[in-house]
Structures are given as C-alpha cells and as structure tokens.
C-alpha cells in the first residue's frame, strides 16, 4: 500500500499533472470528455490514443535500456511490420494471418538485434543503427515506396476501434503494459535484466544466462514495435513505409528516461516508461490544441524536456549534492 502511495507521488506523475494543467490553462476545454458514437471523445482521450504507439515502444525499450542497451531500430521495425500487414491483407490473406505475420517479423527483427548485441557483442547503438537504416529500406521494398491502402476491418479496428469507449490503441498499450509488467515482476526476469544491466560479468558468474536475456529484451522490443506499427497502419488505413514511426525511437527512449530508467542500465519500470510516453504526448497535443505556430514546436518540446529532467534530477530531489557517487550516474 505504501508503495502504491509513493508511486503516485513519483516525479513522473507530478510532471504529467503539470503538463496537463498547463494544457488546461492554455486550452480550457482540455479536460472535457463527451460520449459520442459509442466511444469517449476529447483531448484527453486523444492523448491516450496518440500516445499509445510510443508507449508501446517504450514498454519494449525499457527492458532494452535496463540492460544498458538502446534500440534505435524500433521506428523502422514499425514501418516493416505495417508494410507486412498491409501488403498481406491487400494480397488477400486473412487479417489474423497478416497480423501474426507482422508480429513475427517484428520479433525476428528484434532477435536479429539481440544476435548482434549478445552474440557478436556489438555496441547496441551501432548494432541497432544497422536496422534503423536498412529496416526502412526493407519496408519500402515491401510496399515499393507507395502507401499501401487497405480496407480490412480488423486492421482498421486495431488502429481506430474502441473498446469500452476507450481507443483500441490505448487499450492494447494498457494490456501490453500490464502483461509485460506481470511477466517481468512475477517471474525473476526483472531481477535478471537489472542484474545484467548493472554488471554483466558478475551476472554471468552468478549463473544468469545473459545472452538469452539480451535476445529476450531485444525480441520484446521488436515485438512491441511491430504492435505499434500495426496500430499506426490501421489508424491511417494504410502502410506508409516512408513515414511510419519516423524518429519515434527518440521519443521512446525519451519516454523511458523520463520514466526514471538510467541509460546506464539497472533499475527500470515499465509503467513509468508508459507514463513518460503519455507526458510526451500530452506535450504534443498541448502544442496542437493551444495553437502555437509550428515553428515553435521543437523549442517548446526542448524546454519541456528540460523542465521535466530538472524536476527529476538528483539535484532537485536531494538538495545536498554528494560529490562522488554522481560520477557514476551519467554518460
């Protein structure tokens, strides 16, 4: 119980609250939610709906970052998965088959990253950069550069449908978050992932199969990216290999970091990473509804990141700085 209370007081949720209040201040109807055509409708719902893809990416990314890695390829994997699903339904395969195939392709992409990192021992940024560059090419190869439009009801439902009034994308993100959190925390996986991230040499001496774990976290990240890719394709009823997921890897990483996971590996929290994604989206939506000229988007974003990070930084939480341990806390 006490843990729940202290989680609610976490800087992430406070930051989210702050961003939402600013949005409300700039755009008074921000919190207004109406019921329309069997679904909830309002800016807040948009935040959840639009934030879902990055939140899903962040779910996978959190595990990767906990092992001291990073996955730059998720945006490209989104494009690949979307392309696979779309071209398959257009070619006449049943939608469930297409979805499963797209998820499988995402998983394979993730395992490929895992292979480079775990077996070939390539540094994660560079290992995943390979797929970040090539992946989008593969997606375009599949769609031949065109937006593959489809009318399949299942895919469209995944992207734009609603469940209990909530957007399907947000529901999927929520379910994925709960399932992954349970798997990680109810098994020893979370402990092992953190152990590998903190000290891989010690982990392998303690009998942890760090390779398997790396395969697992990168595989999960690829899988999550595929889920996000299918959602994004379903949302616009077409696979846009050129733009789907473009630069979303940066948002996902940002979300995980805002969620309090250090890029140096170790302690991580999937739910807080999701909160991080929602914070980012709340910022984006706030900019859109408040009517800032678009030239200022990036500047506002930079400023808000900065504020969130300052709120979270050890300097603010612990006003008396200790000199030495901080040395390890960055890079």
């Amino acid at each position, binding site marked *: 119980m006490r843990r729940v209370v202290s989680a609610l007081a976490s800087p992430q949720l406070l930051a989210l609250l702050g961003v939402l209040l600013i949005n409300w201040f700039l755009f008074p109807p921000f919190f207004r939610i109406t019921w329309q055509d069997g679904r909830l409708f309002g800016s807040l719902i948009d935040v959840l709906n639009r934030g879902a893809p990055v939140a899903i990416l962040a779910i996978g990314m959190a595990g990767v970052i906990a092992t001291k890695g990073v996955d730059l390829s998720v945006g490209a994997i989104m494009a690949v998965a979307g392309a696979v699903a779309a071209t398959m339904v257009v070619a006449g395969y049943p939608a469930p088959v297409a979805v499963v195939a797209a998820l499988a392709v995402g998983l394979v992409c993730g395992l490929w990253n895992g292979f480079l990192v775990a077996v070939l021992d390539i540094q994660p940024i560079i290992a995943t950069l390979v797929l970040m560059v090539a992946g989008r090419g593969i997606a375009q190869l599949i769609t031949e550069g065109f937006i593959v439009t489809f009318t399949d009801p299942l895919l469209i439902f995944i992207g734009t449908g609603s469940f209990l009034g909530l957007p399907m994308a947000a529901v999927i993100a929520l379910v994925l978050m709960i399932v992954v959190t349970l798997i990680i925390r*109810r*098994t*020893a*996986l979370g*402990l*092992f992932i*953190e*152990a590998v991230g*903190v*000290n891989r*040499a*010690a*982990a*392998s*001496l*303690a*009998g*942890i*199969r760090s390779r398997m774990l790396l395969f697992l976290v990168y595989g999960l990240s690829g899988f999550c990216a595929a889920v996000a890719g299918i959602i994004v394709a379903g949302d616009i009823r077409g696979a846009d290999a050129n733009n789907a997921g473009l630069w979303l890897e940066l948002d996902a990483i940002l979300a995980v970091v805002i969620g309090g996971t250090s890029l140096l590996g*170790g*302690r991580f929290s999937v739910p807080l990473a999701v909160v991080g994604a929602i914070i980012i989206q709340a910022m984006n939506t706030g900019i859109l509804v408040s009517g800032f000229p678009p030239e200022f988007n990036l500047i506002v974003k930079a400023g808000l990141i900065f504020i969130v990070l300052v709120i979270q930084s050890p300097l603010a939480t612990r006003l008396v700085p*200790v*000199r*030495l341990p901080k040395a*390890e806390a960055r890079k």
Partner: protein
Amino acid sequence: MNDTAYALEARGIVKIFGNHVALDNVNFGLLPGEVHALLGENGAGKSTLIKILTGAYQPTGGQVLADGVAVTLDNPQHAQKYGIGTVYQEVNLLPNRSVAENLFLGHQPTRFGFVDRRKMERDSREVLKRYGLDLDPASELGAHSVAVQQIVAIARAVELSGKVLILDEPTASLDRNEVERLFEIIRDLKARGLAVVFITHFLDQVFAIADRVTILRNGKLIETRTLDGTTRTDVVRLMLGKDVAFSGATGVEDARPLGEVLLDFKGYGKKRSVHPFNLTIHKGEVVGVAGLLGSGRTEMARIMFGADSADEGTVTVSGKPANISRPTDAIARGFGFLPEDRKVEGIFGDLSVRENIVIALQGKLGWFSALSRDEQLEIAGRFGESMDIRAASLDMPIKLLSGGNQQKAILSRWLATDPAFLILDEPTRGIDVGAHAEIVRTINRLRDEGLALVVISSELDEVVAYSTRIVVMRDRELVAELSGENINPGVIVQAIANHREGPPA
C-alpha cells in the same frame, strides 16, 4: 592542541549519508615525519575519513586544517595542491591509459603546450625502477595484473605527495617482497618529513611500520596512541570493543579420513592460460591454493567454474563425466565461485543487498519459480544475520556497504544455493580482523558440513589454518601438492620458490 604542528588535521568531522552516521565527531591529526595507522573494522569509517581529508567528500560538519589553517577541499585535485597524495581503497586508476599517463595524469611534463611523452616515459621508467618494476611505460595499464596496478597507484601518490601520503589498504594485493619494498619507500618518505597515513587490516604491517595508530569503531574515534608499549591484543580489543581470540595457525588435525571423491580433474587446462593439471577433491575437505601473484591461481579457478572454458582434459563430478564450459553448468552441479575482484565481478552495485544475496539461488531456480519479496527478505535476513552483514537495511544498494560487508554478502549468495563445492578466490582480501575471523570460521564450518572447498589465498598463515591439503602454483602450473606435516608456511614457501626440482616430499 594548537601548539602541535599538524601537517593535516581533521577536527570534529561529522559525515552523514542519508540517515546513516558514517563519522561522528572524529578528530585526527597527522604529524610530519610519522607513519600513522588508521584502524577499524569494516565499515568503521576509515575510507570515508580519507575521502574527506582529500576533498572527495565534503564533511557534514567539522573542518579540515592544512598546516593549522582551515581549508575547504573542493575536490581531489584541490587536495593535490596542498601536497596530499592518495591511494584509494579500490585501485582507482585508468586501465585504458598507459602506465606513464597513469603516473603523471594531471601534471604531465609539457613542451610548447604539448605533453612531452618522451620525457614522461623516461621519468616513469625511473620511478617504476624504484619499485622494482621493469615494464614498458607506454603499455596499457589494464594489461597488467592488479598487483602491478596497485604499485603504479602507490607510485603516483608518492610522486604527488609533497607533505602527506595517504594509503588506503595499499598492500591488499601485494606479495611480501612488494610490501617490503613499499615499506622501504615509506621509511624514506618519513625521513624526508612526510606524514603518512596507512590503512590496513594486517596488524603485522602496522607494527612493522607505524608510529602512531588511530582506531575508529562505528564511525566514532576510539583512541589515538603511539605504538610503543601497545600490544596487538590492545589494538584488536580497541577495534572490536571486546576480547576475541583470533590465533593464526590452528592447524587441522591430521589423518582425518577423506570423504568420498566429489571432483576429479584430469589433464584439465587451457592453452596460454593454465597448464593441464590433475586434481582430486573430496567431500569435506579444503584445498588451499598457494602461489605468487600472477601464478595463475585465479585462472585455474575460473576454468574449474566454467567462467573460462577448458580446452583440454576431463572432469568428473561424483564419478560421472561432466562438461563444464559455462558457469551455469557449474552452478547446476552445486558449484559456487567467489571472485577475486569484488567490484568488477562480484557485486551488483545498484541492486539491493537482498537481491545480491538471492540472485544466484534465483538463477538456479530459473525465471519462473521466482522468489517472492518476502522469501527473498527471509533468505537475505537469515544469511545477513549468520554472516553478520552490517547494513542499515537489506534494501539499500550494496555499493554503499563497506568492502568486508560486500564480501560477506557475496559469500552468502553462494551459501544460499546450498552448494556442494565452493571456490573462494582471496576471500579475506581487504577485510578486517572481525570479518576475517568470521570467514575463516565459516570455511571451517562448511568443511565440517561436508562441503568441498578450494580456497585461493596469499595469506600463508591463513591457508595453513584451514586447509586439509595445499596445492602450489607457479608459472601457471600446478607444481606441488602438500598434505599432513607439510602444511606449514615454511614448506609452502619452499615449494613456491623451488625451481624445476620436484615437489618436496
């Protein structure tokens, strides 16, 4: 006290970490030309005091005076300006840089604004020669053994110290000759009027070199006194605050019947690492491994555990051939391994003490049978108590514990897996008398419970104390096996020193 001309003085130092009082109103004064031993149990606050004296930490209260003037030391570099040179407890050098650069970093000789490498390397060669090291100063530090790195750290501190030299457990990884050479240098510096602080857990060394001693216990200053007229027992009593009987060699009674064979290594070895060796290990025995630094003991331990895989020979466990090429293979068969370098291969610094203790057990159980938090706390609490791990909470990150307590936690990690065979590499390195006795007691207890142990140690007295058998390594080769009568320091030294002649007896 104003009339005493301290070179460096700490007055009323208080240091609080979170809500843990690491130092409580400690006074400490250093006279020029003295060697001052700083003693205390693990976690007594020695390293913390040193870090405050050298600007690495800022005190919560009290002040630091250099030559009687109050100073604020913002960082270690600032302290260097006051002529304070320091070797911190863990080797704190840069393995990625050359030996010469490690010696001179921050004050490299320059020519026209550029670092004069040639001069730097020439000077380095000179400096290292004084410590009997003949190595290429341009070589990477990380390519050398821990002992060599330790000597480089000491050499660096000596070069930097104009007035005060602080050594926090500098001898933990040095062999006798190297310690002797270090002492010569310290005596020389003392003669030149330097004040030297010397932290160690070896009382012999304290009595060999120190003039005065300051004893800390639980962050409090117990006493500062001259060593003249002080006995070992006095010192130990002051440190522990009670009387303990820690005697050196207890000796293990002869002719103990050996238990059944647990492990049998035949021609086991790895090219360019360890020569093939034969070793049979029985249940209920402790095999001590002696040898000089760098003789390949750690490497032998690593291939036994599968941390490096052997490329020749066979091993049988309880008579059945086994393939041990990864730690998981070894752990599945009930092996445990306490590595030599705690910081790099032992602890998970950011994880809690609790998690550090249960991790190997959990690894053995696998992903799905996860221990609940309560089970973890119960296990960690049980071992924390029986090993006397001193931590404010089992949920604090282990990196905040002192070295000795970290070591006990790692040992607990393996005991929690209910092992049949334990390999301990330098289990008592950098550990205070109390913890030392604790670990030796644990080794004896485990042996009596029927475990098989291989214990690597550079402390001959200690090896002799608990070993049923001793193997000696030299140049990566197992050269002798001693038992019975032969388990005594004299014979071991002879075996280590012997050249090419067959093993004694």
